[in-house]
């Protein structure tokens, strides 16, 4: 596979995962705002912005709907959903011959939908229909990807992009929530806090899955454990890193003798550390730092992928 193609596949799915995450984040928090809450509107949306990586040129200006409008529709704001979907499509457009026609059509439709459905001005009415439709669009793309594209190298690069983005986003989210919500939590949970915690779980589509494991009994420790260490839940960090490592392994077994050893070591180490971690241990130390370390590892894995598969030096490649 061409290096450029691998690069585009990787970014196509990273951008889509990011778009989905942002949409869900906005959608959930718009919903939470409706209930009476101890959390001020400003603090809530500051938290959303922080969890999205504090985008440049995007500051809280006391107007929820204009912020949401920018986050969703402003193509010139790189963190916006529109920009992500545009980025995904641009990447896919450059590799039209590598993805299936069905994939392209789904993605193309998503792109045309977001331009078509864009409301003329910020208001809440259309958003409630629009946001779930966007998530559906991304899910349809993923479904079509799994059923129409050969699960070869290209598909594996799509998985790598998707799960690396997911692991990073969840780690970031947990870091922010730990600082902003949990740090004040004492033993008893009141209704307001309960709402916030449900919000966190639902941002990761984890509420129902959590209840199946722990019942609706929400505790700080269990929520962190579930989102960080659950081996089976697709949005947990551990699950994401497992899948990431699995895909990197499949890619490297196809490559002929390129220097993937360091990449495999780093991702394998992260995978193993999550597999053997205990929540009590993490909480006893500094959970925020733990999350930030995971983020650093994700960044390192990204750099190594580039070094091994995408931007390797020609001299090295000729020598092999």
């Amino acid at each position, binding site marked *: *596979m*061409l*290096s*450029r193609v*691998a690069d585009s596949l990787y970014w196509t799915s990273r951008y889509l995962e990011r778009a989905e995450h942002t949409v869900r984040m906005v959608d959930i928090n718009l919903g939470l705002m409706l209930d009476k809450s101890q959390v001020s509107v400003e603090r809530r949306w500051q938290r959303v912005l922080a969890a999205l990586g504090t985008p440049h040129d995007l500051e809280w200006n006391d107007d929820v709907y204009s912020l949401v409008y920018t986050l969703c529709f402003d193509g010139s704001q790189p963190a916006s959903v529109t920009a992500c979907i545009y980025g995904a499509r*641009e990447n896919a*457009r*450059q*590799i*039209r*011959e590598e993805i299936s*026609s069905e994939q*392209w*059509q789904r993605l*193309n*439709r998503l792109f*045309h939908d977001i331009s078509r459905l864009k409301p003329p001005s910020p208001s809440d009415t259309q958003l409630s229909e629009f946001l779930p439709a966007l998530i559906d669009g991304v899910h349809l793309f993923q479904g079509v990807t799994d059923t129409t594209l050969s699960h070869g*190298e290209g598909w594996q690069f799509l998985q790598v992009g998707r799960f690396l983005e997911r692991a990073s986003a969840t780690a970031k989210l947990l870091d922010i929530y730990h600082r902003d919500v949990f740090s004040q939590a004492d033993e008893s949970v009141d209704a307001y806090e309960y709402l916030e915690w449900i919000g966190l779980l639902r941002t990761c589509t984890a509420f129902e899955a959590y209840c199946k494991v722990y019942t609706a009994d929400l505790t700080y420790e269990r929520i962190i454990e579930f989102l960080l260490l659950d081996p089976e839940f697709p949005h947990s960090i551990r699950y994401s890193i497992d899948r990431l490592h699995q895909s990197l392994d499949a*890619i490297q077994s*196809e*490559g*002929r*003798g*390129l220097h993937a050893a360091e990449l495999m070591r780093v991702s394998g180490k992260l995978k193993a550390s999550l597999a053997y971690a205990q929540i009590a241990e993490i909480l006893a130390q500094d959970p925020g730092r733990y999350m930030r370390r995971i983020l650093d590892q994700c960044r390192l894995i990204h750099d190594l992928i580039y070094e091994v*598969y*995408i931007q*390797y030096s*020609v001299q090295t*490649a*000729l020598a*092999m």
Partner: protein
Amino acid sequence: MSTTLLRDEFDNPLLREYLLDGAFDEMFASDGAIRPHYEDLLRVLSSLPREELKRRKQSADVSFLMQGITFTVYGREEGTERIFPYDLVPRLVTSEDWDRIERGLTQRITALNLFLHDVYHDGKILAQGVIPREIVYSCQHFRRQMRGLQVPRNVYVAVAGTDLLRLNSGEFVVLEDNLRVPSGVSYMLTNRRVMKRTLPHLFRSYGVRPIEHYTQVLLSTLRSIAPEGRPEPTIVLLTPGVYNSAYFEHTFLARQMGIELVEGRDLVIHDNIVYMRTTAGLKRVDVIYRRVDDDFIDPLAYRSNSILGAAGLFNAYRAGNVTLANAFGTGVADDKALYAYVPAIIRYYLNEDPILNNVETYLMTEKSQRQHALENLDKLVVKAVGESGGYGMLIGPHSCAADREEFRRRIEAHPRNYIAQPTLDFSRSPCLQEDGSIEPRHVDLRPYILYGDKVTIVPGGLTRVALRKGSLVVNSSQGGGSKDTWVLS
């Protein structure tokens, strides 16, 4: 002069605005009688309610947009992607007409390849004075670097797309040979797919000859011109990238052939061997079906500021380690001034008369012809020899005095840069209008010719339509569209 009267079809509301005059109409003879092979088509179209026709047209349009079958319009920020406007009514070509076209184009491509070989080797045709040396050597697409270079099987032009017009007499003539990087074949193939879905029964009843094997033949053509000693050649398609107006076509062809679509930045040249960067390291490339113009292909050999090509590619080509299709320097044979000499080229190399005629062409380098042209600028079409896509043209009857004066000045300053041709009245074909009625519009025909170990012309081509009423310009950049072309068996 003109009439909208049709003998038997007078009452057909679909045809109320149908204009018949001196121009050749693909559907009706000059006396208003329907041509037999169009009878079924008209019957089916008339039987469908207008709303149904419009609905099918719309669903075809949506299908093009969703598949991303679009081209890029230059110079606009918003909406840079448009679907290539598409007409639902197919253009029918009888098997007799096609047979003549096929023989004529085969003859032409064979002669032009012989000509290119001669020009870049011994130059016999020039030495014997059949073609003036100046015409060849002053051509901006003549590549001195190609002198003495042996290309596999002497195939210079592997892929050609020749534009044909049908004159009032019903005769098909060649308007121009596109021998560099002809495009549009993906529209021929996708028009057919959409058409089969839109009017399936009609399609079936006509016994249309298939064109779907085009990409497979293209692949075997490319394979047949691989460098010697490379029995399992790696073939790639080189695209200028996603911002090129024909990018959709590049991806389409690469996918249909199962070959890699590469950009210049994917290629690395080392020791005169071309490699592509893959996730598994560098992989050798043997044949490049390039959709990048000569000028941009190697910044070391040609334009040094080009980022579309790959540095060192031309040297690898000269060393015989990689084949380019089409070869460098084929543009000398589709120069608009050289075009006037193609009948002589055919006679010289093949000792045959041309099967397809040229359009009458005045060379501005010849004093008497220039004189005639300058006196009749209001009746002629003047074309710049180096331009394509309908740019740099003067259409005499539709021009103003200032335009004509401007062209007169330019012609006198640079006679080699211009040719003149009579304003042609070429054929019209029935097209579906916005309101669901049918009116005739001017059309041309571009069949695609593949030349490798043998010549293959898939039966069909791209019929381009001048969608605006009265317009003679069929180029997509100037408001043209296309329709499916059915060659009948």
